[in-house]
């Protein structure tokens, strides 16, 4: 299984869609300094109030998470996961796979983990490129705090990929499943930072996995393990449960 996972990961990395996604992410990295060169006063004041932090780095992190990486997490995981098992069924390959010594739930787990690994690779490469490119180009940029905060958000990206794979298999049709996954992740992304805008709702928004991924925004001055580890563990658990649910649901898929 490990060998299959590795080969599937390598094959997915070499696909054209991965290159297109990488190009889009590189564009985002290059465009953000232009977007943040001169934020208007109302943006600076609002973000300073929401995050209790008047540092320009907080403005950057808000834009990076809300405008860039949350949108990435809504779209790219769905595309990476949209073919898991159902593409094999629709192209007539599933009957062939059924003759192999690998059950369908295990095959789903392999393909989903592979998609998560591709997402994580794209995600990590983007953050590293940003950490190398932004010092001196983005006001107040702190590479250490940035990488620490985004390491938590990466768990949300991995969760989103597992979630999309499970939802699409549960729906059972690629087009409709992709749409449902996109809508559900869109809602999660849309509500991810609502607890910061309306503090009364903060506790309830913690039920949203994408809010958990953005919790480093609570204290960017002191991004520390005690702030990052609990949501990381929660997201890891949610991802494992989501993949397990997908492996259970996938049994209904017929060749």
């Amino acid at each position: 299984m490990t060998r299959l996972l590795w080969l599937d990961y390598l094959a997915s990395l070499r696909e054209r869609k991965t290159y297109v996604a990488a190009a889009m992410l590189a564009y985002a990295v290059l465009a953000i300094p232009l977007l943040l060169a001169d934020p208007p006063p109302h943006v600076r004041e609002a973000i300073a109030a929401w995050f209790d932090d008047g540092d320009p780095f907080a403005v950057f992190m808000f834009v990076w998470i809300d405008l860039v990486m949350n949108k990435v997490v809504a779209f790219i995981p769905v595309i990476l996961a949209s073919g898991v098992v159902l593409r094999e069924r629709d192209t007539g390959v599933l009957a062939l796979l059924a003759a192999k010594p690998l059950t369908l739930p295990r095959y789903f787990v392999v393909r989903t983990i592979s998609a998560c690994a591709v997402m994580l690779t794209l995600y990590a490469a983007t953050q590293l490129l940003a950490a190398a490119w932004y010092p001196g180009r983005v006001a107040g940029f702190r590479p250490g705090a940035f990488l620490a905060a985004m390491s938590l958000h990466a768990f949300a990206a991995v969760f989103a990929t597992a979630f999309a794979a499970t939802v699409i298999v549960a729906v059972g049709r690629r087009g409709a499943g992709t749409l449902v996954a996109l809508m559900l992740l869109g809602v999660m992304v849309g509500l991810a930072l609502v607890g910061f805008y309306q503090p009364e709702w903060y506790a309830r928004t913690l039920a949203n996995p994408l809010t958990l991924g953005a919790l480093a925004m609570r204290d960017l001055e002191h991004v520390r393990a005690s702030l990052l580890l609990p949501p990381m563990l929660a997201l890891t658990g949610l991802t494992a449960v989501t993949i397990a649910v997908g492996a259970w649901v996938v049994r209904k898929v017929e060749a």
Partner: protein
Amino acid sequence: MTDTLGFSGHLRREWRFAPRRGPIVMMLVGVGCVAFNHLVLPLFPERAIAFMRAGFRLEDMAGVLALNDLMGVYFPTFFVGLASSLGVVLLAREEHRLELLLAKPVRTADFVAARALPVLAWTAAVGVGISAAMAVALALQGEVGRSVSPVGALGGGLFLTALAVVLLAALQIAFVRIRDPFTGLLVACGVWLGTSVPTAVLLYRPDAFAGHPVALHNLVMPSLLWHEATLGWLGPLCLLASLPLAVALARTAGAWLERSDAL
């Protein structure tokens, strides 16, 4: 059996097989988004509302609600149309059904247009339904302000619906040459995000539009609300015009597919 079917005859056949459940569900989702906006956004602190008002140059709460509603029109409408339009050529090709479908006694341009048109018509229906819900919600909440009338908001929603229909029809031209549905999805997502970039620029770099009023008033989404009186008639007109334009684009895609030797 060997006679070539007319376009309308083939369209009638394809219409029967167009996905319906997805668009109806998405229309309900969009209406739910509008209801959510009108029930929840007024509960946000004044600072968050003021941020959107100042950032998008809106006069009152009606403008803030209408802008969020417009996103509730554009996102579901485009993506329900995208999910359905993948089946026109891309998925059929990947599943090795395209050769069989093209063996039908119908010209390729007619074939693609006949498969795309029902999808685009349902896409338009989703946009019209959500836009109407948006207008009703604004009419019911008169106390939120007068800067955007229900008719103007409806026009803005119909304009975005027309934009979604034309973009999806134009994407068919790309889809007849793209072999991988994942790449197709990614390109389509990129196109959708591309149309939203000017609005993000308005929020974070309004100075980029200084001295470029034409770009400002034609590219950013809030401009649909700044000119709501014009959109009251321009939106429906654009939606009407979008359907024949979409047919022409789908036929262009079909003509290109006909010249392609790689199925």
